[in-house]
C-alpha cells in the first residue's frame, strides 16, 4: 500500500502542476479545451490525494511498521479511532491531511459552480491548484508520509527495517477531542483558500462589482465556523487534558489559529460595507489575502521551530519552503493589486460619523489591532534575538494586558454596531435604542459588585455583556412585535419568523450573543482558586464550597496503559454530592505518564481535580484542585456561535410573510419585497 500511496502523491503533484500551468496557459490563450482539461485535472486531485490518505490509514490499521510514520505515531494496542487520528498527529501526516482537505475544497467549489461563472471559475481552479501544488511538493519532497525505515548495509545498500512494535501515539493526543479538533482547525485554515482564490481571481479577471463577495460569503462563513469550532475544541482539549486548570495559554500554536480568525472576523463585517454601499473594495481584498496568508504563516510558525511552543511540531527545514511560498503569494497578490487597482475603485461617501459604516470601520480597526498585537507578541522573541542577540520569552501576562482592553472595546462595539443605521443615525433614535441596555448594564454592574466581582476588567466585561445582550434582545423584540402586530401570530412564532425572514441578520445577532457568553466565561478567570495538598485515603481538602474526601487509590488496567486512579468523594454543605476519579495513566508503548483530569462542571463554576502523583518526600498521593468560575459559559457560547453561524448561512425566506394588500404600511412593505420573492 505504501507504494500505491507514494505513486498517488506523485501523480497528484504532476496533476496539480498540469492544472496550474495548463490553467494559466488556458487563461492566456483563451483556449476552452485547455481550460476544460485543466479543470478536470483540478477535479482529479481530490481522488488522487484520497488514495494516498487511504493508503496511509491502511498502514495504520494494519500496523504496517515498515512505514516510519506509522512506527513513530502508532502501536498495535492503540484503539482504532486513535489509529485513524494518528494520521494528523505528526508533521508528514498532517501535511498530507492538509492537502487532502484543500483538494476536497477545490473539488467542492468546482463541482458546486460547474457551468457557472465561466469568466471567474478557471482563475479560481488555477489558483487553488497552485496552492495545492505547493502542499503536494511538501508531501513528495519535504515531509514524505510514506518514508520507509531503513538502515545502511555494509555492502552499501539499504536494509528495510520492520520493527515488531511502534512507539505509540503521543498520550496527550489520545483523547476524544483530538479526533475532532485538528480536522476542524485544518478545515478552517484550508477553507480560507477558497475566498482568497475568489478575491485574487476577481482582481485578475476584473470580475464585475461585488459578485465575488456574494459568491464567497458562505465559503468564508464555513471556514470561519470551522476555525471557531477548532479553536474552541483546542481550548477545551487543553482544559480537559493538560491539567493546568486553564484553557488558553497564548502559546504560539494557539496564537497562530487566532490571527486568521481575527482577520476573518473583520472580513465578515467589512464585506457588508461593500455589499450595501460599494465601499472598502481594496480593504476587503487585502483582508482576505491577509487571512489566507496568516493561515499559512501560522502553519509555518508551528512547523519551522522558529518559536518555542508547548505543542509545536519538531524543528525542521520545512520552514524555508513556507517562507518562499508566503513571499511568492504576497508578491503575486501585490502584483495583481498594482496592475488592476483601478478596478477596485470605491464610491466612498459618508453621511454621518454616527452611522454603521463608522462602527464597522472601528470594528475592523480593533480586530486588526488585536491580530497585530498577537502577531507582534508571538514574533517578538525572534525580533529581539535578531536585534539584541538574546531570545526573550513573551507569555500570557503580556498578551492579557494588551488584548483584554481591546477585547472589551470590541464587546462594546458588538452592542453598538447593530443599533446604528446605515448612512446616518439620529441622536434621538440612539437614545431610544440605548436607554434600556445602558440601564441594564448599570444594574448588572451593581449586582456583580454585590456578588463580589471586584476585578475591574471582569466587572466591565459583565456590564458590557448585559449591555450587548439587551441590545440584541431589543432587536429581536422590536422585530417580533411588528410581525405579531401584522400577522396576529404568537410572539414565539413571530420570533421564529423574524429569524427565518432574514437569517443573515438574526443569525449574526445569535453569533454576537454567543460571543457575549464566551466573554462572560472568560471574565471568571480573575476569580480562579486552586489548592494542592497531600491527600491520603480518608483525609480532606476544602476548596470553595466543596469538601474533597479521598477514598481510595487504585490501579486500573486500560487497553494500552495502566492507570493509577484516585477516588474522591465531593461534599457540599455536608452532603455527599458526587464522586470524582482523577487519574494518571502510564502508556506502555511510549513509556510516558499523563494526567486524566476529573471535572465537575456547573454554570457557576468548575471543580477541576488533578491527581498529581505521589509526593516524593511523603509518598502520599497529591491532589491539585481548582475552582474555576463560569468556564462552562465559554463552551455554551461556542455552541451558540456555531448555531448562529449555521442560521446565517441558510438562505433567508425574505419578507414574504407580509400581506401585500390593503393598508399603507403593508403596501409599503410589499413595495420593499424583493422582486424575486414577491407573490
Amino acid at each position, binding site marked *: 500500500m505504501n507504494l500505491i500511496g507514494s505513486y498517488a502523491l506523485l501523480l497528484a503533484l504532476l496533476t496539480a502542476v498540469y492544472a496550474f500551468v495548463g490553467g494559466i496557459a488556458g487563461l492566456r490563450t483563451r483556449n476552452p479545451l485547455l481550460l476544460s482539461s485543466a479543470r478536470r485535472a483540478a477535479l482529479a486531485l481530490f481522488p488522487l490525494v484520497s488514495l494516498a490518505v487511504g493508503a496511509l490509514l491502511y498502514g495504520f490499521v494494519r500496523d504496517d511498521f515498515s512505514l516510519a510514520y506509522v512506527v513513530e505515531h502508532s502501536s498495535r494496542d492503540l484503539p482504532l479511532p486513535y489509529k485513524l487520528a494518528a494520521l494528523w498527529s505528526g508533521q508528514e501526516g498532517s501535511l498530507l491531511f492538509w492537502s487532502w482537505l484543500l483538494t476536497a475544497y477545490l473539488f467542492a467549489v468546482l463541482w458546486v459552480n460547474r457551468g457557472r461563472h465561466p469568466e471567474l471559475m478557471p482563475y479560481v481552479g488555477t489558483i487553488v491548484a497552485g496552492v495545492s501544488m505547493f502542499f503536494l511538493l511538501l508531501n513528495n519532497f519535504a515531509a514524505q508520509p510514506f518514508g520507509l525505515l531503513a538502515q545502511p548495509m555494509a555492502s552499501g545498500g539499504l536494509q528495510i527495517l520492520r520493527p515488531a512494535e511502534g512507539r505509540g501515539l503521543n498520550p496527550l493526543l489520545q483523547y476524544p477531542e483530538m479526533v475532532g479538533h485538528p480536522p476542524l482547525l485544518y478545515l478552517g485554515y484550508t477553507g480560507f483558500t477558497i475566498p482568497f482564490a475568489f478575491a485574487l481571481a476577481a482582481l485578475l479577471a476584473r470580475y464585475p462589482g461585488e459578485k465575488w463577495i456574494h459568491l464567497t460569503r458562505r465559503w468564508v462563513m464555513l471556514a470561519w465556523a470551522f476555525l471557531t469550532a477548532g479553536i474552541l475544541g483546542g481550548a477545551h482539549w487543553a482544559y480537559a487534558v493538560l*491539567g*493546568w*486548570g*486553564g484553557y488558553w*495559554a497564548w*502559546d504560539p500554536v494557539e496564537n497562530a489559529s487566532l490571527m486568521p480568525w481575527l482577520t476573518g472576523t473583520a472580513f465578515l463585517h467589512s464585506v*457588508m460595507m461593500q*455589499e*450595501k*454601499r460599494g465601499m472598502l473594495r481594496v480593504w476587503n481584498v487585502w483582508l482576505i489575502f491577509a487571512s489566507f496568508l496568516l493561515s499559512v504563516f501560522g502553519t509555518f510558525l508551528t512547523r519551522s521551530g522558529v518559536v*518555542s*511552543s*508547548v505543542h509545536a511540531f519538531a524543528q525542521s527545514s520545512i520552514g524555508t519552503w513556507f517562507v518562499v511560498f508566503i513571499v511568492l503569494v504576497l508578491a503575486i497578490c501585490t502584483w495583481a493589486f498594482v496592475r488592476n487597482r483601478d478596478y477596485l475603485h470605491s464610491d*466612498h*461617501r*459618508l*453621511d454621518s*460619523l454616527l452611522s454603521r*459604516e*463608522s462602527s464597522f*470601520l*472601528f470594528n475592523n*480597526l480593533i480586530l*486588526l*489591532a488585536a491580530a*497585530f*498585537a498577537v502577531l*507582534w*507578541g508571538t514574533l*517578538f522573541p525572534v525580533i*529581539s534575538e535578531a*536585534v*539584541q542577540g*538574546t*531570545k*526573550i*520569552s*513573551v*507569555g*500570557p*501576562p*503580556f498578551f492579557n494586558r494588551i488584548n483584554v482592553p*481591546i477585547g472589551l472595546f470590541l464587546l462594546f462595539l458588538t452592542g453598538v454596531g447593530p443599533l446604528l443605521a*446605515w*448612512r446616518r443615525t439620529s441622536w434621538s433614535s440612539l437614545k431610544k435604542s440605548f436607554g434600556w441596555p445602558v440601564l441594564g448594564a448599570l444594574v448588572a454592574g451593581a449586582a456583580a459588585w454585590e456578588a463580589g466581582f471586584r476585578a475591574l476588567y471582569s466587572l466591565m466585561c459583565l456590564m458590557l455583556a448585559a449591555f450587548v445582550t439587551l441590545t440584541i434582545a431589543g432587536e429581536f423584540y422590536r422585530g417580533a412585535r411588528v410581525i405579531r402586530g401584522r400577522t396576529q401570530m404568537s410572539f414565539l412564532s413571530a420570533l421564529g419568523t423574524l429569524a427565518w425572514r*432574514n437569517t*443573515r*441578520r438574526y443569525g*449574526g445577532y445569535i453569533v454576537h450573543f454567543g460571543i457575549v457568553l464566551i466573554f462572560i466565561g472568560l471574565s471568571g478567570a480573575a476569580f480562579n482558586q486552586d489548592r494542592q495538598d497531600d491527600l491520603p485515603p480518608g483525609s480532606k481538602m476544602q476548596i470553595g464550597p466543596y469538601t474533597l474526601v479521598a477514598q481510595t487509590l487504585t490501579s486500573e488496567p486500560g487497553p494500552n496503559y495502566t492507570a493509577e486512579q484516585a477516588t474522591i468523594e465531593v461534599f457540599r454543605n455536608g452532603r455527599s454530592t458526587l464522586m470524582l476519579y482523577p487519574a*494518571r495513566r502510564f502508556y506502555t508503548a511510549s513509556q*510516558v*505518564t499523563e*494526567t486524566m483530569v476529573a471535572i465537575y462542571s456547573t454554570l457557576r463554576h468548575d471543580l477541576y481535580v*488533578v491527581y*498529581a*502523583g505521589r509526593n516524593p518526600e511523603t509518598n502520599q498521593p497529591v491532589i*491539585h484542585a481548582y475552582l474555576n468560575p463560569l468556564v462552562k459559559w465559554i463552551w455554551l457560547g461556542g455552541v451558540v456561535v456555531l448555531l448562529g453561524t449555521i442560521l446565517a448561512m441558510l438562505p433567508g425566506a425574505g419578507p414574504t410573510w407580509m400581506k401585500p394588500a390593503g393598508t399603507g404600511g403593508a403596501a409599503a412593505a410589499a*413595495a*420593499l419585497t*424583493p422582486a424575486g420573492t414577491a407573490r
Partner: protein
Amino acid sequence: MTSAWVLAFVWLAMAVAPSTSERVQRLGERLKCMCGCNQILTQCNHVGCTVSARMLRELNERVGRNESDDLTLQSFVQEYGPEVAIVPKTRGFDLTAWAMPGVALATGIVLVLWVLSRWRRGPAAVEVGAVQERHLAQARRETED
C-alpha cells in the same frame, strides 16, 4: 503611644502588602519553567518535573528573604538566561514590545478618523424627484441588515 503607632503601622503594612504566597504566585506567573515544557512556572504540571520544583523553591526562598521583585526576577534571568522571564521589560529594546501595539492602534485610529473625514467631504447625494427602481433596490439592500 509610640508602640501603638508602630503596631498600627505594622498592621497597615501587613494589610496593604501582598502575602508571601501571593507574591510567589505573582512572580511565578512572570517566569517560565525551564525544563523545556514552555509552561508558566506556577502552572507547570509536567510529570516528574524537577526543574519547576527547584525554581519554585528558589522563588519561595527569595520572596521569604523579602527581596524586591526586580532583584528576584533579575537573579532568575542571570541564572537561567533571558528566556526565563515571560514578561518583556519596560526599558531598552523590550519597551517596543509594549509600545508597538499601542502605536499601531493609535495610528489606526488616526487613519480611520482621517478616512472618515475624507469620506464626509465626498460629493453630495444627487436629489431625485421620482423614485426609481435603482434607488428602491439600493434602499432594499441598505435596510435589509
